[in-house]
C-alpha cells in the first residue's frame, strides 16, 4: 500500500506571533518555522504503517515556495521514502490545496492519505474533508487510532463527548488528532541519509487548478488585550473578590 502524507510548514507553535502594524497579516520574517505539529503526527503514523509492513511506500508532499523543501527533508529524515514539492504560492486557500492534492492522488494512486486535522496558523480544519469530497473517498477526521485491516481502515475519532469508531473503505483520507501517536525525532545519520532521498518538484500551475483566492483577508488585527489582574494573598481574599468584586459566586 502506498501512503501519501501532506505536510505544511508553519510558524513554530512555541513562537508568540506578532500582528503587523499595517494590518496585512502576522510577521513571518525572521520567525522560526517548523512542520505543523499535526502533520508530524501524520508522518509518524505513515512510518509506523511502513514499519509494521502495512505500507510499502510513504510519499510526503508539501505546497509552497522553496522553503518547504526543508520541511520535506525533515519528513524524509523521519523515514518517508520520497518527497514531492509542489512549487506555488505559500498561502493558498484550503479548497485550492485540496484540489492540488486531489490531482496528485490521481497521479500517485495512494490507498491512504494522511493529513493533520488542522494547521496551527490558519486554524481552518478543512483540507482533509475537502480532499475526501473531491475524490469521493471516505474521511476519518480527528483520528486517535488507525487500524488497516482486510482492505478497510478502522478509525477511532475524537468527537465531542467521547470517541467514535468508523470503518472506511480504501482509498481513504485520514486526518490526525494529537492522541494518535508520539512523533519520533530524526537521528543525525537519518538526516544525512535524507539528503540523498528523491525529492521531485512539480509546478502548482501544472495541475490545472485555479489558484486564485476567493477569500480576501481585509485586515488582520491583534485580539483585544486583557487587563492584567491582581494577585490575591489568600484563599479568603480570593473568595471575597470573586463574591463581592467580580460577582461570580
Amino acid at each position, binding site marked *: 500500500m502506498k501512503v501519501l502524507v501532506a505536510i505544511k510548514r508553519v510558524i513554530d507553535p512555541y513562537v508568540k506571533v506578532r500582528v503587523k502594524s499595517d494590518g496585512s497579516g502576522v510577521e513571518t520574517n525572521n520567525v522560526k518555522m517548523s512542520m505543523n505539529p499535526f502533520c508530524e503526527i501524520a508522518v509518524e503514523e505513515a512510518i509506523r504503517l511502513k514499519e509494521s509492513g502495512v505500507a510499502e511506500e510513504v510519499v510526503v508532499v508539501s505546497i509552497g515556495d522553496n522553503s518547504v523543501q526543508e520541511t520535506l527533508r525533515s519528513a524524509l529524515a523521519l523515514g518517508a521514502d520520497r518527497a514531492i514539492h509542489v512549487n506555488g504560492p505559500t498561502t493558498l486557500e*484550503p479548497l485550492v490545496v485540496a484540489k492540488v492534492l486531489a490531482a496528485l492522488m490521481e497521479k500517485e494512486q495512494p490507498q491512504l492519505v494522511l493529513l493533520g486535522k488542522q494547521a496551527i496558523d490558519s486554524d481552518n*480544519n478543512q483540507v482533509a474533508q*475537502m480532499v475526501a469530497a473531491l475524490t469521493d473517498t471516505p*474521511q476519518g477526521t480527528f483520528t486517535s487510532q488507525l487500524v488497516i485491516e482486510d482492505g478497510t481502515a478502522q478509525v477511532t475519532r*475524537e468527537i465531542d463527548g*467521547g470517541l*467514535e469508531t468508523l470503518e472506511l473503505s480504501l482509498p481513504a483520507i485520514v486526518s490526525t488528532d494529537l492522541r494518535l501517536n508520539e512523533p519520533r525525532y530524526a537521528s543525525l545519520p537519518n538526516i544525512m541519509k535524507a539528503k540523498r532521498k528523491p525529492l521531485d518538484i512539480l509546478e502548482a500551475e501544472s495541475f490545472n487548478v485555479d489558484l486564485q483566492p476567493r477569500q480576501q483577508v481585509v485586515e488582520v488585527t491583534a485580539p483585544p488585550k486583557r487587563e492584567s489582574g491582581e494577585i490575591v494573598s489568600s484563599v479568603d481574599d480570593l473568595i471575597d473578590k470573586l463574591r463581592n468584586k467580580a460577582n461570580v459566586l
Partner: protein
Amino acid sequence: MDTRILVIAEHDNEKVSLDTYKTLSAASCLGDDVTVLVMGAACHNVADTLAKAQYVSKVLIAENEQFAHLLAESCAPLVLRLAKDFSHILAPASTFGKNLLPRVAALLDVGQLSDVIQIVSTDTVIRPIYAGNALAKVKTSDVHKVMTIRSSAFDCGETDCGEVAEVIEMNESVNNALSKYISTQKNKSERPELSAARVVVSGGRGLGSKENFAMVEKLADKLGGAIGASRAAVDAGFVSNDLQVGQTGKIVAPELYIAVGISGAIQHMAGMKDSKVIVAINSDPDAPIFQVADYGLVGDLFEVMPELIDKLP
C-alpha cells in the same frame, strides 16, 4: 441571490445541541430567512423542538436510518442537493460541523469560513487565526457562503419563542458505500456540558496524578461547574480527551474560569481567554497564566485547593 440561510442542526436524535441554538443566533445576524435541516433517525422530536426556537422560519427533516450517525459521507450529498436554494450554509464549529461542512463546501466548489466569531456583513466575517493570537476579517466572493460558528462567541436565542415554524418532511435518501458506523464510547457525566457551563474548573500537569484531579472535580461540583483540562493533564491520563480546553480542544468562555496547576501555554489560552473572569492557582509566580488572570493566587495547590473547597458554601 437573496439572503437565505440554511443551518444544519446538531443533535443526538433526542436532544438539540446548545451549539445549534448559538448557530441560529449567528444566522440571525445575516438575515431572517432561516431554515434548519434536521438529519437523523427517529428525530421528529428534534425537529419539533427546533420549530419552536427563536430565529427559525422553517424546519426540514430528513429522517432515515442512513442519517442515524450523521456520517459526513451520508449527510454531505443531501446538503449539496438542498444547497442551491441557499446563500448561506451554517453549522456549529463542533466536531460534527467541522467534520461535515468542509466536505459540503468542496462539493459546492466554494471555500469555507471556519470558526466565525463575528458576522460583519453577509459576505464578511471575523475569525481567529494563530491560536486566537490574531483576528482576521475575511470577505468571501463565493456564491454560497459556508461557515462554521464558534459557539462561545454567540448568545443562545430563546428555545421556545411562542411561535412554531413549519416542519417539512424530506423523503431523501443517499447511497453511502464509503463509510460505516461501528461504535461510540460516550463519556457520561452528571456535570454541565463543558462548552455551556457558567463555571469551568480546569486542571493541568501541576496536579500530578489522576487521584489529585479529584480536587478539581470537587471544586467544580461545589460551584456547579464543568471540568476541563490542559493537554498535559489529558496526555498524562488524568481525564478523558474530550475535556481538553485549547486551540485543538474545546473553546470555552464561561463567566468564571479557574485554572489549577496550568502554566498557560499559547495553545491552552486559545481555548479560554475570552472567559469573563479568570482565576489562576499556581505555585510558579512567573507562569504565563497570571498574565491573563483577573485574580491570581500563588501557592501550593495542595494547600490552596482543600482550603478553597472547604470555605465555599
